[in-house]
């Protein structure tokens, strides 16, 4: 059993990415194999230097940066989405692996969740 949680919504404008991240962290906490895949506007979760204090939300950078410490296996980002949002490797949190083959990648997981 290996789980992939797909995040395609941008941060802060709605809660769905936040709750998808909670799903991944819960699986990891119970020692289940889980990775996160960021596609479309979802890649914006991976930007360095987010500061949601002015809009009175809690940042998720720390959760995301610590995801692998908590047992999330991989943080994967879709290359074409990174390109669309002009995100270079230097702009991203540490530990993000870039993938060009989202379609093929999906088939590696026995359980896929698009929250």
């Amino acid at each position, binding site marked *: 059993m290996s789980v992939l949680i797909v995040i395609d919504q941008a941060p802060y404008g709605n809660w769905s990415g936040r709750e998808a991240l909670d799903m991944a962290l819960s699986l990891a906490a119970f020692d289940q194999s889980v990775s996160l895949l960021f596609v479309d506007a979802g890649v914006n979760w991976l930007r360095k230097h987010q500061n949601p204090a002015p809009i009175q939300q809690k940042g998720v950078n720390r959760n995301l940066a610590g995801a692998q410490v908590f047992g999330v296996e991989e943080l994967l980002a879709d290359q074409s989405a990174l390109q*669309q949002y002009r995100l270079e490797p230097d702009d991203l949190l540490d530990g993000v692996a870039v993938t060009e083959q989202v379609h093929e990648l999906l088939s590696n997981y026995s359980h896929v969740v698009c929250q």
Partner: protein
Amino acid sequence: MMTLHILNKSPGHPRFGRCLDAVGESDQLLLIENAVLALSVDDIALPGRVIALASDLEARGVSGHREVELIHYDDMVALTAAADRIISW
């Protein structure tokens, strides 16, 4: 008649394109919430005068290299007070 268009959808959202189509030459476009992500996208032709909420950019870590006027909530109030018409997309 000057219309202020307030847009809060990500660039991939269908209403994003519909809003851009509706912005006339003398109109203003205000990007808030997830719409500020458009400032980091190359291939979107944003119309004439583009304004964005600074706190939404800061939240998302977007620096906005494009020509854009960054404003705060009090400026947003002034813009809406001055506009003849306001459309929230």
